[in-house]
């Protein structure tokens, strides 16, 4: 049996709103989502904005980059790095972050929210 989850696509911003190879914070209700445009790879990612290490709303202001082929973001506070694909912490900590699907359609960027 499969559990089916539907995804609601939330329109976050225009595709040229984001700085290239960087992130910005998107408000979704009371939540904060970090959205990244990885221009070099032409890829979009979204994660929670809060860094789980010290609970700071800061990931969207972090530097993005890659470790091997894995795209990652580094928190500006203590440089903990997280995979933008799995959300797993790459600097050896147990914590991880939530990631969201992203799609671009007709000049707009949409973040996918799973329905409960």
């Amino acid at each position, binding site marked *: 049996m499969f559990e089916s989850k539907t995804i609601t696509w939330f329109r*976050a*911003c225009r595709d040229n*709103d*984001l*700085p*290239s*190879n*960087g*992130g*910005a*914070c*998107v*408000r979704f209700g*009371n939540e*904060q989502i970090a*959205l990244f445009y*990885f221009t*070099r*790879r032409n890829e979009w990612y979204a994660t929670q904005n809060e860094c789980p290490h*010290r*609970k*700071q*709303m*800061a990931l969207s*202001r*972090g*530097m*993005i*980059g*890659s*470790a*091997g082929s894995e*795209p*990652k973001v*580094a928190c*500006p*506070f203590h*440089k903990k*790095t997280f995979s933008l694909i799995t959300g797993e912490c790459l600097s*050896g900590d147990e914590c991880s972050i939530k990631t969201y699907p992203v799609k671009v359609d007709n000049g707009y960027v949409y973040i996918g929210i799973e329905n409960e």
Partner: protein
Amino acid sequence: MKLVVIGNGMVGFKFCEKLVTADHNQKFQITVFGEESRPAYDRVHLSEYFAGKSAKALSLSDADWYDSNNIELHLGESIRSIDASAKTITSHRGIMTCYDYLVLATGSAAFIPSIPGIEKQGVFIYRTIEDLELITAWAKKSRTAAVIGGGLLGLEAAKAMLDLGINQTHIIEFAPGLMPKQIDDQGSALLQSKLEQLGFVIHTSKNTAEISGDGRITGLRFSDDSVIHVDMLVISAGIKPRDELAKTAGIATGPRRGIVVNEKLQTSDPAIFAIGECALHNGMIYGLAAPGYEMADVLVRNLLHQESASGISQNQEAEFTGFDMSTKLKLIGVDVASFGDPFAAGESVKTIRLQDTVRGVYKRINLSADGKQLIGGILVGDAEQYNMLLQTYKNKLVLPDDPSALILGTRSGPESAEAGLACLPDDALICSCESISKSDICGAVSELGCESVEAIKKCTKAGTGCGGCVPMIKDMMLHTMKANGRYVRNMICEHFACSRQELFDLVKIHSLKTFDEVLDALGKGDGCEICKPVVSSILASLWNEMILKKSNSTAQDSNDRFLANIQKGGTYSVVPRIPGGEITPDKLIVIGQIAKQYNLYTKITGGQRIDMFGAHLNDLPLIWSQLIAAGFESGHAYGKALRTVKSCVGSTWCRFGLHDSVSYAIRIEERYRGLRAPHKIKSAVSGCIRECAEAQSKDFGIIATEKGWNLYVCGNGGSKPQHALLLATDLDSETCIRYIDRFLMFYIRTADPLARTATWLNKMEGGIDYLRNVVVNDSLGMAEIWEKEMQLLVDSYACEWKEAIENPEIRKRFSHFINAPEEKDPTVHFENLRDQKKARDWK
């Protein structure tokens, strides 16, 4: 098998940790009783609690560690009795538990001398976090304090008094000198003078006769009838092992306390063991963490050996045969170390002493009569050689022909350190907290491919305790990699296989202007948080273009990206430039008005500037518009750039001043403002040799002489302070600036990422003599080029903030939400403190 541990201190915890790690078949079901309300915490770093470290940060494990390892933990639960024949224990609340094995890790209590008046209010002991909380509360209404005990623990407590803001602290020691168990009279005398410089009042050979005061302490009277007046007293005069529980259960204890154990840590009852500070082994109580950890390790191995049914066990039986009590610590900023037999004397011992009252250093090494073996020694004021000396002593290495070389010269070349490492035997213990030997570390490098200190820490746990051995681990790792024929290349990161210096030259030759251009031409992959700031810094040092232009903004470190320093809670701090620390009343008023308008916390910085904290990202452009309108410009406090040129008031007002140090500091600061470098750069100008601007602690510092200026370079404060060295004397103002131009360009060009000038110089072959040759005698023939390059940077300076607020593209990045640009981050919260605000603590 049911195993009960009484005591949840550092050693009790370490025992549990080692047991659950090694007990693969989960033979042991562990129950722990702790008397304190908190799970085990780091008592060694207790004084950091006063320096602001939270109780949580001191904790040795996460809250759920015990649960997830199936350990039953009872806190706030002391044990009333042990029934050794029935193998049960009973807690004071009446919990009865039976055991197969019982481990006593009851630790020690503070030794309290019997002085009349000891019960008075304001008298404390220094042992647990609860004690610290009581001390903290009382210290708020106290101005003076006394500490009884001039040993290790006493000086820790004295440090705590300093951190709590007590104006004057007396240290009282019964013996003729401080730390009598670790260092000799000369060492004590030096330590004493260093502590006196810090404002402590030290009384040695003093016996406290009475604590005076009516219900509440007002002072102390000594046996020689002298008196001092103090508002509080902290007793930290040693420990006494907690053996009372064992004693009433009929277990053998020593005449002067301590639970007697054999080399298997077994007490007189074969099912009961004792480890840590409560255990009396061979007439000795070990009051340090490392020997306690060793005991825990021995006991774990023996228990597992005993329980392995077949007798064929991976766990060999082990014995505790005593422990070397060598110690190194930093007391109130003063390094103190002793190892082996520090006091060895007599005909069969030769001693080398080095006493340098200028630098405040005392070193002593004791050698065998033939001068070939190290027996012990003492280091006060500079303990950099401690690890090497300890290893030499422990492994009985044959000494060089001139053993004084072991303690001379702090800036010894890297070659000698490496030669020393190669001589160490494989079983040399490098990390004594975790018992990790040289061969463990080399094995981790050679066989498991660990090529960073972090990887070695993860893999072996070496360096995770007190951390004192980390520099040695790093050297050991590099040495092993080299020995294995691995070409140790100084690479920036996986994306750039070259050093910063090589990259600098390549970027210049190819005239590359953006991070993407550099990465495409010279690197691979997508960059990361290590190489992006390095490349951005190189681009800024070379071309001095506004750092947020040309898509370079996201290649900046976060502080540079928003031209402000990110602080706890995600708000920013703002530091306008105040050259030389000189400011008009009108400008002061503007800062006050802005701080009020945007509700900012204000503080004077160490560099004679004013820092405004707690600014929302959205407010930064508004704040800067007002600052710029009032004539301020960016202070670059966020950048690896020139920060501040501090000055004393100089000859315009000061009756000692030789030259106008303020005007010269302003000239220097305005010349190099905005200059980006591998790390931050600080400077200062003093108007006379009294050196009120502390120029000798700066990357470059200038001190007025009768004939001109003396130029000092490569000093810094921070975690490893280093005095600047004299580069040139009696310079006129123009020559001094030319030398600084050359010095800075040489540094910017050749230093590794994030290396301050002091570190850069320490690694430079030939040291200060070489540097002087390059800068003063122009031995590389670069002087003219560097002066021209610097002049280009000076001429192209522009205030970044002015450009940022005038450029709409850049300005729009200063909002928290991309889809709600007017809204500020709603999760930002502040708390009140002394009529201002502060950031909410980390969760």
